[in-house]
């Protein structure tokens, strides 16, 4: 009997962590106003910039950083956003311990500043990129785009690919952009 009850407990715990169950709880429990926009159940619409990153195995570190900064809902917003999305290997190039340190709650402001430096409000398509173009990012600092033929760089780092999203556009890049010292 005891074993059975414990099994039930484990099963319930698992169900409780399931996204669908959480949605149900949020919708039916009058004490909960619901989760943010990223929790909207919608498998039909074109993915937004967050879901593009979530669906990419190369962006698990970036997604972890967005979660730690509590920016998942903000980037699930209507936008429009141009997001420069460093791949996992880009984070790996940072000095040892940097990512772990940034993901700590006490580093939230520093992490947000870095993430904001990777987002421009507005959509800049590849064909609109001009050599030497600057963009003033969400943290109010500028990045510089360069273009030689079809090759685009951002503050010198390489654009590996471009993905269109419902609420903007994602430039996959091979380095983490470092905001100017404040």
């Amino acid at each position: 009997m005891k074993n059975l009850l414990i099994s039930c407990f484990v099963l319930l715990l698992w169900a409780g962590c399931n996204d669908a169950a959480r949605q149900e709880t949020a919708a039916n429990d009058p004490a909960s106003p619901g989760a943010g926009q990223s929790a909207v159940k919608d498998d039909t619409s074109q993915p937004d910039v967050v879901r593009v990153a979530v669906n990419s195995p190369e962006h698990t570190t970036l997604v972890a950083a967005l979660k730690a900064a509590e920016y998942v809902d903000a980037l699930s917003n209507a936008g429009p956003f141009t997001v420069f999305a460093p791949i996992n290997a880009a984070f790996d190039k940072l000095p040892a311990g940097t990512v772990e340190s940034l993901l700590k709650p006490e580093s939230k402001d520093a992490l947000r500043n870095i993430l904001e430096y990777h987002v421009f409000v507005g959509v800049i398509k590849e064909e609109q990129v001009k050599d030497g173009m600057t963009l003033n990012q969400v943290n109010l600092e500028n990045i510089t785009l360069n273009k030689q033929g079809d090759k685009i760089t951002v503050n010198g780092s390489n654009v590996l690919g471009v993905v269109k999203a419902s609420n903007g556009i994602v430039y996959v890049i091979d380095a983490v952009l470092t905001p100017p010292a404040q």
Partner: protein
Amino acid sequence: MNKITTRVSVLLALAGVLACQPKGPASVTTGDAASKVYVAPGQYDEFYNIVSGGFNGQIGVYGIPSGRLFRILPVFSVSPENGYGYSEETKPMLNTSHGFVPWDDLHHIALSTTKGEHDGRWAFANGNNTPRVARVSFESFRTEEILEIPNSGGNHSSPFITENTEYLVAGTRFSIPMANKDVAIDSYKENFKGSISFIKVDQTNGRMNIAFQLRTPGFNYDLSRAGKGVSHGWFFFSCYNTEQAHTLLEVNASQRDKDFIMAINWKKAEEYIAQGKGRVEKAKYAHNVYDEKTHMATTTMKDEVVVLDIKEFPDIAYFIPCPKSPHGCDVDPSGEYIVGSGKLAAMMPVFSFSKLQNAIANKEYDGDFDGIPVIKYEAALHGEVKKPGLGPLHTEFDANGNAYTSFFVSSEIVKWNVKTLEVLDRVPTYYSIGHLSVPGGPTSKPHGKYVIAYNKITKDRYLPTGPELTQSAQLYDISGDKMQLLLDFPTVGEPHYAESIPASLIRDKSRKIYPIEENANPYAAKGEGQARVERKGNEVHVYMTAIRSHLTPDNIEGVNVGDDVYFHVTNLEQDWDVPHGFAIKGALNAEILIMPGETQTLKWKPLQPGVVPFYCTDFCSALHQEMSGYIRVSAAGVKTPLKFSTGTPE
């Protein structure tokens, strides 16, 4: 066994808490939310919420805290529901220099104030598309006046008002070449200008008149607020696209890290106008007024405006740099602090009126733009709210020195202290808030208590209704230190700005009936003895009365195909909440609703012979279904004698 069950239950409860905690900053409504918004049957709401309808061109009237919708007031859009814009009496309300414009995009509300406080006289609203402003009476809850704005490319920064309702403003969102000039679009910098109209309000009857227009640099003028208290006599306008781009503004109008807030000394402008320094320019625009005695609107076409070019009068206008593409530009209750909300910025500057005055006195300028002094940013700055959230849009205030700012991108309301600039609290909104409203929030004496969020994105908040969803408003209690979400309520159209006003300021003066003896409509039949049908060439005028439960006349003959038949229906009732309606089969327009004591006219053109029924559309009595009649239509040229009657013995 019992012990084990208990222990497992505790574990289960704990697991539930740990496993299901909502992600992110979602706050939790507490158990007393329902009682805070519950207005018992037969009881009244504490506040009227006067809500812009955005693309429905109308105003919604809601109750707070219940969120119940009371009425939709047609303003810039026709309303087949009651005949606004369809009846002969109301059609002129929608006349413009372009002709009859049956729709507009209504964004902002301004409730009249005296000494900066709500006085419950009128609501003003802007038409964003074909530039217009409207005045709605709080006695009749009807649109009484619409004034077209010439030399404007879209009336967005409007109809914000000065503290005694001396003026309301109408600033152009899109700059354009003045005087309908035909020029190349890429000559924007050379030929395109901004225009800000100052509309004088007659304090006795609310009538509006363009006192003067300021000619300003070619930017986009977004929002504005008048100074009050210490800053009375000034007006502040947010400007974006100071890059002066004319294409792909999404990119090209986001180049500069700072745009401007334009500070206007309107008292000074008023002096120049009084001295005759304004330039009279030709401009065609319509002024439409609804008369409560004749129950009729008339249009007057106007043909000139008085213009002051701010370049030529150096002490009228100043630019204050403001990051980045500022949207909201809000003045605190004291009038000392001006909050700029750069919608792409992650900080908010708060400017000080007294520092601005010192900067002007000491000429602390950072050059000029098109001849207008640019104040040094630091010289006018009270301070910055650091990292308040993403995408600040609008700010309202309470009476305790706090500000409430909406953040679109981070989807939240942030409470902060105006003097210390310290962030005090934040609550998520569902989802992506645009405007917000604190009762009395833009006045010198906020009533506080609540903040209402008008969200831009609804998605999964209500039962789905296909791709087109209702808009979602949310009510928060702000009486404590922490904001508390109380209620979601759906709204019609797409609300932009709204104001909330204590019901006590309006409720007792709401009109119940129109005294029939005061009805001065030339087509009124003020008793059944006056009911008649008259032919004037092709026109047939039916002077009809309506009273429970018959229409007089209800049998009409002698009308021919192709005639213009005018049903002038007078409601003879003198009893609260007994409107009658009138509709006729095949009418190509709408129905009309006629309030007690009022006369309204529906035009009908019969296109085929036969006998056509008409009836009362507003359930008025137990014999409402009997309230009907017939009109006989003969073919063109057939001389059926003109006859009308009610109650002829069978």
